[in-house]
């Protein structure tokens, strides 16, 4: 996938400009959420076949963390948003 990722701030850029971190669907639990919640956050993944959200950092561009939503089987990209404002689609 991702020969080009359309950064909402910079436009289409090649994968080499980005750093990928992983699942963006998981939410960091509250500090006191308990062992299970933290174990799930740090270690367990849905790893979906199909639509998946993940974090990409435009390291060699605008240095924003993005949430890329794409299909893990076809690599079709549905949406790319800034991680700070996940509601908006560019």
């Amino acid at each position, binding site marked *: *996938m*991702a*020969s*080009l*990722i359309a950064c909402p701030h910079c436009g*289409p850029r*090649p994968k080499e400009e980005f*750093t990928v*971190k992983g699942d*963006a669907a998981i939410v*960091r*639990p509250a*500090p006191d*959420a308990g*062992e299970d919640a*933290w174990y799930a*956050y*740090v270690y367990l993944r849905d790893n979906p076949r199909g639509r998946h959200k993940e*974090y990409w*950092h435009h*390291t060699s561009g605008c*240095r*924003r*963390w993005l949430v890329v939503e794409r299909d893990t089987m*076809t*690599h*079709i*990209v549905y949406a790319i948003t*800034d*991680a*700070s*404002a996940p509601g908006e689609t560019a």
Partner: protein
Amino acid sequence: MSSYRLPKGGRIDRAKPLDFTFDGKPMQGFAGDTLASALLANGRQLVGRSFKYHRPRGILTAGAAEPNALVTIGEGGRTEANTRATLVELYRGLTAKSQNRWPSVDFDLGAVNSLLSPFLGAGFYYKTFMWPAAFWEKVYEPIIRKAAGLGRATYQPDPDTYEKCWAHCDLLVIGAGPAGLAAALTAGRAGARVILADEGFEPGGSLLSETAPVGGKSATDLLTKTLAELADLPNVRIFSRTTVFGWYDGNVFGAVESVQKNTATVDPNRPVERIWRIAAREAILASGAEERPLVFGGNDIPGVMMAGAMRSYLNRQAIAPGKSTVLFTNDASGYATAADLEAAGLDVAAIVDSRPDAARTWSGKARILAGTVVDANGGKNLKDVTVLNNGRTETIEADALGMSGGWSPIIHLACHRGAKPVWSDAKAAFLAPEKQEGLTIAGAAAGIGSVEACLADGAGKAVSVLQTLGFSNATAAFAAAADTATISKPLWRIHGSKGKAFVDYQNDVHLKDLGLAVNEGYGHVELAKRYTTNGMATDQGKLSNINAIGILAEARKVSPADVGTTTFRPFYTPLSFGALTGASKGKHFQPVRKSPLHDWAKKNGAVFVETGLWYRSSWFPKSGETTWRESVDREVLNVRKNAGICDVSTLGKIEIFGKDAAEFLNRVYCNAFLKLPVSKARYGLMLREDGMIYDDGTTSRLSETHFFMTTTTAYAAGVMNHLEFCAQALWPDLDVQFSSSTDQWAQIAVAGPKSRLILQTLVDEDISDAAFPFLGAKEVSLCGGKLTGRLFRISFSGELAYELAVPAGYGEAVADAIMEAGAPHGICPYGVEALGVMRIEKGHVTHSEINGTVIPSDLGFAKMVSTTKPDFIGKAMLSREGMTADDRLSLVGVKPLDPATTFKTGSHILSDGAVPSLDNDQGYVSSSCYSPNLGSTIGLALVKHGPTRHGEHVTVWNDLKNEYTKAVLCSPVFFDPENGKLHG
């Protein structure tokens, strides 16, 4: 010139003769020849030997699918094995050699394999060579490996250069045959940005060898006119000699342009090959169709050729295939070739047509036999062919045999992103989806036969693609036309052959191998491929796969639709490492990052070491010093006695701004930062969310809302990304911003008892212990206000020490000034080696210890982990059982009992007298050095129950070097444990 070159005709330039050699023999061709056509012109049909049986092989095709005519071209570092003669544009001075033969291509001892072929059937090696067990590596495999491969590569480095580029367009058209030209012209006229790529050295595709009129006009005129118009359109770029090798996600196409593969005198200013990554909004694949060979006995004898290839050689390079030619066809193509041969005055002995019901409108001289060629006969060249005609066998003398089994659309690229080809009974071929997101197939690649229909299809499809791109004005450059081509029922194999009937020429897979695969349970198309190696040669089954599928279908008694194809994968044709590498090779493999003090260090005699992309100064040898240890020992002793100066500019530096900066730092470090006073530095530990230490460094507060963080050199980029992640993704409501200032500051450590004295001569403010105590951090004025810098009183060496940051461009001037000011005090420059020694002496950890599997308590930092902060990265996971278990490896010092003995980093620790075993493994030495202050090797080690074992005798075990050192575990702080010097 030879009798094979016709006296006139073709697109060659007879005014430009080109000398070349084949197997050392001088030959001549013309501009416009390929190596293959030039070899044919010189009467050379036998050009190679097959992989397994070493069968003599000739030129089979005129294009990318060539399985036989593989030669080694070039000399020395330019040696290129397995090069398809059919794609090499002839040039003056070309040297070509045949392959996989010994002693010569005409007489090859390897051909005995052919006699053994009953024993060497598909997969024979899986069933034997197993006994005795030791024989595989010693006897069998070496023999097999010796026989492996076709050409021989060179070990010499490549003298030429390569590069990689990006290109952008609205429409990429792949293939400049009629369909592609029509599409490009249509799009070009509409004003779209167009790239038209074709692997040939002349655009035109099949038009280049077309003699029949197209739409009533000459094909050549049509081509010339179209190319001229395209050349005039500024928005159209034509990439000749450019093969599109892969279709990737995001509609990026990989293409390789051969820039200087057509010359023996390479211009060093230009690359020999160039990769294009083409970002196309839309693409049209107009790659044409591949003619199918027919599977009959002896179908590999030199002289047997694809009918279309024969036609192409005849019309493009004026080559006669032989004196007497037979055409064996299951398709109209054979007739077109026969007609052109006769028109050129050549003798066509017969046209053998396998289609019982073929409606023929043949008006030529050659007789037509309804039937099949069952065997081609001959050794190193074709002598005659055996034809089965209405149950009657007839032998026809011929030195050339053209075959056509119909056409397969070239859909390779259309399947690179997962699309599966679907069998079409109507087209008797596998077709890819005609339209996928970003890619449309046109022309023969979409199963269209006649030229007019291809032109119309290319133009029409371009119009609809352009409409989706918003070019609503697009109009087709060619009028609609019905496809007049007929499709024949496929003929997968010929029955009744005596000789070996090859399916995959290069890998010598023949009919029986596929039968065997089915019998043995490997009938699935993918298993058959792997078991027989059909389709795995350098041509990737361009010719063989379709017939193999048909044969498997027959053997399994199913339709080709049920067999399906194997997976099409990049690359469309093999691609050189050099092209893929581009300019990033040798010393340019990765860029160099230089410290602002690089030249200062160099001038002071530094020996450099690669550290990531940086070069860091390792040590500074003085004349008379013969080993690095001498220099390092001197530097260490001098720093501890007088003073030293060290370039620490490579440390990561991050400016952190914002009213929530303190809160932010409090969350990313495990220790407290909220209340760090302005003008103070603090050592911080940054954990990962799983509790492991990620990085360490000092962070200073320059104002309420401005912090300055340092990271380790190696983790600078990672920490910056991490901070941005935390700020943008985890806590977007915090007001905090980051600016990397690693390159802004030349950072200079000045350490040693005299460091204050020396620095005070430069720093305008008072830096006495009272005014500027340990962990002070502030902006300072230098040299009477000439410059502003930042001064930090921090120490990695354990000495009274400072780090002074000055704007990078002034780094050298300031370093010189410090050297000058320090000269009377005995200052010396020191490198990272001495730094390493001093930090080990002090028990300070680095990434040798912080290796991603340690938590703060492992390194004695338990107290740094805040118990009061509600949250910080890594907090939650620290309480797991395994993180609190007391058998974790933890930090100790280790030193040899006998200071004359030594040990190395990476040695393991065994309890005194314990048998070496993993169970007895107590840990390992993570860092070690010779300490000139202690007069002994010392080390830091991570050992089970480490801190409780000070004083215990152990063996430091380095079996790799047969070094087993008696040692004692001790405190990791070897030097000045009271920190007297630090506060000095």
